[in-house]
């Protein structure tokens, strides 16, 4: 029997792919609540990266915890070895030692290594006002690896040029990065269809792999910027049975990983369902 699973959702495929980008010994940050990214961290921590350290809210080096909706912050806080407020965190990790990975999802991303979480349309009269960047400029530029994840790979999200550069990789090739005093590392975008990688200023994103069941044409047709498509495109490594089992039984018992993939209108009902289950578990 293959160790790979055939029973996984598109969200679990992305989640496992993000987890695989996390190496043992990495430093990560849990910031704004992004369920899929949180599940990826915890999955990595309880599988291949047990020594990884993450900063969750003000909790330093938190123990792994099952992701819930009502209590994730309390769980992260309870399991920490120290407390850092936000200023200490940015001094120590963003500006100091350096974070390895902090997966980020944005309204738009483009072929130059830029992301936009600020506005769609004109900056002063936007069609859509987004939340804004928080630490995004540093997350995208300074972290060792820039990792974007996108539940919906389409031309509205992956655009020729973002409407506002909230964060930019700025220097892309390892050589240019080191010259600018930055750590070398790639830009990777993990979507519901494929994995794209950019490692050179002058070259487009390379189509690194397509997920099982997805064709190269699907990816090219749904990408708003030019892609470097090799003659023989690999298939993304499927989740293993063990990863899916740990995901569903331990790390994500309530199915939070599906949340990012859901249309906005369906989200409140889904969250209410999860809260019901959390209350039932509390009674036990």
């Amino acid at each position, binding site marked *: 029997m293959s160790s790979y699973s055939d029973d996984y959702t598109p969200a679990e495929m992305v989640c496992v792919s993000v987890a695989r980008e996390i190496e043992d010994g990495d430093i990560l940050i849990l910031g704004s609540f992004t369920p899929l990214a949180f599940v990826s961290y915890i999955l990595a921590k309880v599988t291949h990266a047990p020594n990884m350290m993450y900063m969750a809210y*003000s909790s330093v080096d938190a123990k792994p915890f099952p992701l819930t909706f009502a209590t994730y912050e309390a769980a992260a806080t309870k399991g920490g070895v120290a407390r850092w407020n936000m200023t200490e965190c940015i001094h120590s990790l963003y500006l100091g030692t350096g974070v390895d990975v902090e997966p980020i999802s944005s309204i738009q991303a483009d072929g130059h290594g830029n992301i936009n979480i600020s506005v769609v349309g004109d900056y002063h009269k936007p069609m859509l006002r987004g939340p804004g960047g928080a630490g995004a400029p540093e997350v995208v530029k300074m972290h060792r690896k820039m990792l974007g994840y996108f539940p919906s790979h389409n031309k509205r999200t992956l655009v020729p040029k973002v409407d506002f*550069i909230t964060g930019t990789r700025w220097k892309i090739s390892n050589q240019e990065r080191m010259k600018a005093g930055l750590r070398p590392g790639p830009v990777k975008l993990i979507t519901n269809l494929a994995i794209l990688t950019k490692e050179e200023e002058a070259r487009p994103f390379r189509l690194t792999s397509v997920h099982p069941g997805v064709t190269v044409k699907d990816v090219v047709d749904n990408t708003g910027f030019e892609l470097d498509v090799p003659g023989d495109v690999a298939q993304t490594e499927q989740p293993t049975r063990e990863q899916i089992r740990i995901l569903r039984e331990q790390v994500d018992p309530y199915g939070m990983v599906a949340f990012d993939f859901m249309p906005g209108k369906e989200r409140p009902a889904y969250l209410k369902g999860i809260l019901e289950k959390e209350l039932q578990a509390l009674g036990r």
Partner: protein
Amino acid sequence: MTTKERVLAQNKVAKLTDIGRLIKDGDSVAIGGAWLSSHPMALVRQLIRSGIRNLNVMTILGSVDIDMLVGAGCVDRLMFSFVSMEAYGLPPNFRRAIEKGELKYDEISGLAIIIGFEATGRGVPFLPYRGPFGSDYLNQRPDFYKKIVCPFTGEEMTAVPAIKPDVAIIHAQRADPAGNIQIEGTAGSDLELAKAARRVIVSVEEVVPTEVLRENPFKTKIPRIYVDMVIEQPFGAHPCSLVPGYVGDPWHMMTYMDMAAKPDTFKSYLDQYVMRSEDEYLEAAGGLKQMNLLKKLAREVKSL
């Protein structure tokens, strides 16, 4: 108060309705907390109740605090790096106000705002850092981000100006009457806000004798030299979290999102929840039963 007056004042305890002594129309007000955590929501509701106008509000990572103040018409100008209701969606009043062109705003990256507060706390007019090179923040706000050359290495850096709010409002776990503040869980840059602001108001879950703070001195994060007023207000962060004491209230957040979706239903939200006393607010939000549930959820969390 001057620092000396702050040190001399042994009893800074006041009532929620006293905050008008320290915050006036047109003031710049920095709001503590971050994400959906530890925001001074009782103080925010009191500002709305008081009918205050034309505030220049400053937040690093804001959420329901900012959305409510904007929707209630208290804000003339907003400095922010991030305003989000996270899993609940985009903040409806914030979004509506900006998309209609009704709110003046300064979008500054998060680190730059924190460093701007730090500059004031250190008594310098600016601080340098490796700025957001290549981003559009620099193009939108050339008056805020300035190019500077390191006099030692010749390296190009970004300077950001000292940010000096008139008032900071903060919510925390515990204080003594003299204004020593303990913070146990998720903390934004509340200490930097307190150091930067001319006047500092802190609401806390409980006011305790100084001897109680001495039992756990490492939890005291803001000493009394930075604090002007202390207000005891249990569940003063609700519907935000104040871990490890209580989790945020997801049921109330969803009610808020439903009602803030349109201006007329948001007005009903203000009437039903905000435009009454803080005790009546907590009762309307589910009373002791609901508050105890939020405490229990925080207490009984598990690790893997």
